[in-house]
């Protein structure tokens, strides 16, 4: 039994006076016990909606979400069932995710009994002194607040934490500190993490497995190292190619032409085809399913065949005689 399983999840937002938007259009994701799964994609790809659906903050309009074999019901006015509190979430902005008017200790204690001693333990676990409990959030820096938010999530003795861009609003030095903290916590406590991020470099460092999302669907899932070595989906390749490296070489990263389309009107067939340099006749016609290419890799691209040798989209396109589009 996996720690967290999402099957064909859809999230639809109703908009008054306009057609509804399917932010997540059938996405599946599995987080195994003790695993760190990275979920990457551009803004507007539905990754935050998926994260919120995973913990029950928004209702999935279709599909199934299971946490340790138990169905995750969307939040109602009632208190969450005890078992579900072991599924926690940490938000992007540590300035808005802590109540400005309550002391740190009291907010951490929300997560369960144990009193002052337990709060001190949790603070120590995230690298803060016990006297932090008697202070207010505004007395801490962004990185420290994110530690506090993590301590609060840990208070519920979770087995899975979903983290929505936990590093995005932090300074470089704080980013590295929090990234290391997350890895250590996961290893020490056997925690599973679902790390949502737009920063591929960090995800590459932290995650065991990476899923790539585009316009509400998963386009590729693979162990981190092999994903970086040979990206199978053209979108993954474009994302990796756009990351600037601080090596001083003056290399300008590649831009991906076009924009993420309006999720209310997704393109026909493969959702990525209007921006894909290798799109051919089949792409606008049929939507490719997320199929296993090798035992450990799955990609949703008509260039890749099940059982075929994993190869970069450019190589596959050349093999198949598909002319790459040049912008």
């Amino acid at each position, binding site marked *: 039994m996996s720690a967290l399983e999402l099957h064909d999840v859809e999230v639809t937002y109703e908009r008054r006076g306009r057609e509804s938007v399917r932010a997540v259009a059938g996405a599946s994701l599995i987080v195994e016990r003790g695993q760190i799964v990275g979920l990457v994609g551009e803004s507007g790809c539905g990754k935050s909606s998926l994260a919120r659906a995973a*913990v*029950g*903050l928004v209702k999935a309009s279709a599909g199934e979400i299971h946490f340790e074999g138990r169905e995750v019901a969307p*939040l*109602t*006015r*009632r*208190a*969450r069932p*005890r078992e579900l*509190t072991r*599924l*926690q*979430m940490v*938000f992007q*902005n540590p*300035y*808005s*995710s*802590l*109540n*400005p*008017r*309550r002391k740190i200790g009291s*907010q951490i204690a*929300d*997560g*369960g009994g144990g009193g002052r001693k337990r709060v001190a333990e949790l603070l120590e676990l995230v690298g803060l002194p016990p006297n932090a409990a008697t202070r207010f959030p*505004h007395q801490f*820096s*962004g990185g420290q607040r994110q530690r506090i*938010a993590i301590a*609060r*999530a840990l*208070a*519920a003795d979770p087995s899975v934490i979903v983290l929505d861009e936990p590093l995005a609003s932090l300074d470089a030095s704080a980013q590295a500190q929090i990234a290391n903290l997350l890895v250590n916590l996961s290893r020490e406590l056997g925690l599973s993490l679902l790390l949502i991020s737009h920063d591929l470099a960090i995800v590459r460092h932290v995650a065991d497995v990476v899923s790539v999302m585009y316009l509400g669907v998963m386009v590729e899932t693979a162990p981190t190292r092999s994903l970086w070595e040979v990206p199978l989906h053209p979108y993954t390749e474009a994302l990796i190619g756009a990351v600037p490296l601080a090596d001083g070489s003056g290399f300008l990263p590649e831009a991906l032409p076009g924009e993420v389309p309006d999720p209310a009107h997704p393109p026909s067939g493969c959702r990525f085809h209007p921006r894909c340099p290798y799109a051919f006749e089949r792409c606008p016609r049929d939507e490719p399913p997320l199929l296993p290419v090798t035992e450990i890799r799955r990609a949703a691209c008509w260039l890749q065949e099940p059982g075929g040798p994993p190869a970069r989209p450019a190589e596959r396109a050349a093999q198949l005689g598909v002319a790459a589009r040049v912008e």
Partner: protein
Amino acid sequence: MSEPLALPRFRRRPRLRLGPAWRQPLAIAGATIAVAWFLIAIFAPLVAPYDPLAQSFTPTQAPSGAHLFGTDELGRDVLSRVIFGARITIPIALLLVGLAAAIGGLLGAVAGYLRGIADGLVMRIADLVFAFPPIILAMVVTAVLGRGLRNAALAIVVVAWPSYARVVRGLVLSVGDAEYVQSARLLGASARRALFRDVLPNIAGPVLVLMTLDLANATLLLSGLSFLGLGAQPPHPEWGSMVATGTQYFQFWWMGTFPGLAIFTAVLAFNFLGDSLRDVFDPQTAWRSEDTQD
């Protein structure tokens, strides 16, 4: 037209520039005048030189050493009447603002918490009240209930509660979506528990601001109703009704001018105070020392 180079928005500008709000001159002026009026209301019998109701002097005397504000058409000391007027206006304004905030706040919180039908119902009634000019609606209510100070106060509560309902509902909705509330919910807090622990304490500031500003409105409305003869009845020394009497004796300008000035200063003081409080509580101007740096 936009500047060639629009200014970056310095969100924390007011406080960066002025320091704590209490150092602002307007805040100090507002607080001083308001406190002065409160003290005058409390200690009116000690402060006032004469009995406000005693018709014991020559009528319509101009201001003089003996009667700083002169005397009115019935030979009463205007200064004493203005001082005792604070005893009517200020406690009633406080009381009815408190009442309006309690009723409106409760309805707003319920609407924001329950959403759905309850929300629709409360907000539509609030819209209905908002659709009329407050003074007209208050006049109608007083006319139905009968004239008199108590009914005028009730009328003001009727017109004042919707702004609290609206503000509190909006705040409950927006704070209710805040990530710290969602975090508390995920940790196992029920919606009601989160409402009391995380939502309501965070909306107290803006409501307090609204109440202070509303003190000014209430003072004005109360005086307005009395001016129209719907509020305080003679011989009560209410400021509005004194101004009304004053208008009938234009040649004796002091009869209307001084109570008018009393209304003016009290309303102004509450407005200054409310505006400064808003600067303190407004998240737009609240700033964190660690991110002003860059």
